[in-house]
């Protein structure tokens, strides 16, 4: 199991499009994924869950991934957040 933290850096926050991008990514992997923010914990493969977090710019998300391809998944998630989902920072 890997645990890590990421910050939301794109200005518009984790709105519909980035949420969909994230879920598309996590769904590719076999590993389980949970995301936690301010005491709320959701399944990272559920767009409903991700959008419920309503994470805005500057907020921090705690990830917990667990499974056979956890390393690759964690790496790709970190990259995605770092790039600001391809949106202006």
């Amino acid at each position, binding site marked *: 199991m890997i645990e890590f933290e990421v910050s939301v850096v794109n200005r*518009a926050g984790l709105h519909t*499009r980035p949420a*969909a991008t994230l879920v598309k990514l996590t769904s590719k992997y076999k590993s389980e994924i949970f995301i936690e*923010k301010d005491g709320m914990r959701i399944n990272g493969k559920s*767009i*409903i869950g991700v*959008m*419920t977090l309503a994470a805005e710019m500057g907020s921090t998300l705690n990830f917990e991934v667990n499974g056979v391809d956890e390393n690759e998944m964690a790496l790709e998630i970190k990259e995605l957040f770092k790039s600001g989902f391809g*949106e202006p920072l």
Partner: protein
Amino acid sequence: MVNHRINGIAISKGIVIGKAKLLDFDKDQKQLRDIKTYDADVEKAKFMIAKIALINDSKRIIEKYKHKEKIKTIIESELMFLQDEELTYRIYELISEGNRCEQAIESFFSEYISLVSLNDNNLSKVKINDIQFLKHKLIQEINDVENDYSGVNDKIIITSLLDTDEILKIHENGALGFATEFGSNLSHSSIISRSLNIPAVFGVNQLLGLVKDEDEIIIDGFLGEIIINPDEKTRFLYQEKKQLADEEIKSYLDYKEVHIKNDFGGKIRFYSNINNIIDLENTLINNADGVGLVRTENLVNEIEEIFDQDIQFEIYNRIAESIYPKTVTFRLFDFGYDKLNLNDEKENNPALGLRGIRYLLKNKHILETQLIALIKSSVNGNVKILIPMVTQKEEVIELNKLISKVSKELDIQIPKVGTMIETPAAAALIKQIIKESDFISIGTNDLMQYYFAADRNNDHVKEYLNYQDKSFIKLLTKINKVCKKNNKELIICGQIASEEDSLIHLVNNGFQNFSVIPTRILFLKKKLLK
């Protein structure tokens, strides 16, 4: 509930008074189905069938718009929502607890929305609207019935949301006007309402919970307000207002084709200020000489659009095409201060802070996206670009360079670029700035507040903002002279041009071009001719 007033979005002008007819197709259907017996498996199957139908729908739309990235991603996220196991899991759970399918969907979405609201941020309202559309789609799919339009004749329609088809049918069936709980003034529905001349107000919060069938309703499409069960006095006032509005509009229409000249034989031109599509339509209706100022930051509906070239192009192009062959002047995004403020850090003095061109030069990706969209929409040669909040001639030079670079890359002729004079520094530098500008626009509201150092939003210093102050008019006159000498057009924007007294004063001082709200144009023409 007596004399209850609620605000919404003013969609289509006019006042109408009549009895309410609720058209909540979802609810009608629910009542019908309440008679039948409840069977959890049947309810689950109903949900599953509706879900699969919508999933197939989404897939078809995605295929159709596979080259339109924006539409595709929106529908894709809807598809993911529908396919999300949590949705089905929770709906089934709610059905097993004894809820019918529609009730389960209602509960699911209200639970979900309250969760999102818990993590409140400035985007959640937009999200909630998107989610509501999905709920409506699901419930409509489940009901799968032809909507019943009987009984709308001579009624005011109260409903959650209307699509264009429904508006046309309601109109054909004789409805007087309508109010909806959701909707925006940029939607196709709002455009249809205006072209049919039906008074309409959209986006009235909690509307369906507040109105009953046969309640008396006043719709004020001018102010975007509805009044439920008005008292005697209010009804009387509105009857008068309605009559006045109808007569007033008629009396101004005579001035549509009238052209006015000043004492020296110079033509007086009235351009319009545009904040939204309604203003654009009013520009055409009132026969403005062109669009003098589009406040582009007000056209932004969602923060994402600031970064989206296609959406921007679509709306700029629509404005440019509608007004052709007359011209339209787009002011570059004037973010900051009392407008949409994207600055990360709180500013102690935002009026003197990072706004207008200052913000754009520090956020070049936003500036470039907007320039590309604007220049693309300028192919017919009737688009001009205006630079806000200039204090140095170097800012104008830098913008000119950027605009000619983008134009070259797009292989489109460079549009005219003008400077907005709204700071005392720019006014003082007019002789230098004019050399770098194709035209000048004076933003008198800001120029006045900076000139007199008096906040235009502060009532305590209102008396310092004097439209007819001699030294201020002298400053404007100096700018006018420089423009005339250099043979460059000058447009006066701001409240000073909208008030009849100060307008007459300006006309007498040799000013010829004014940009005002479009609905004010015919009134001002009438006053000038008196």
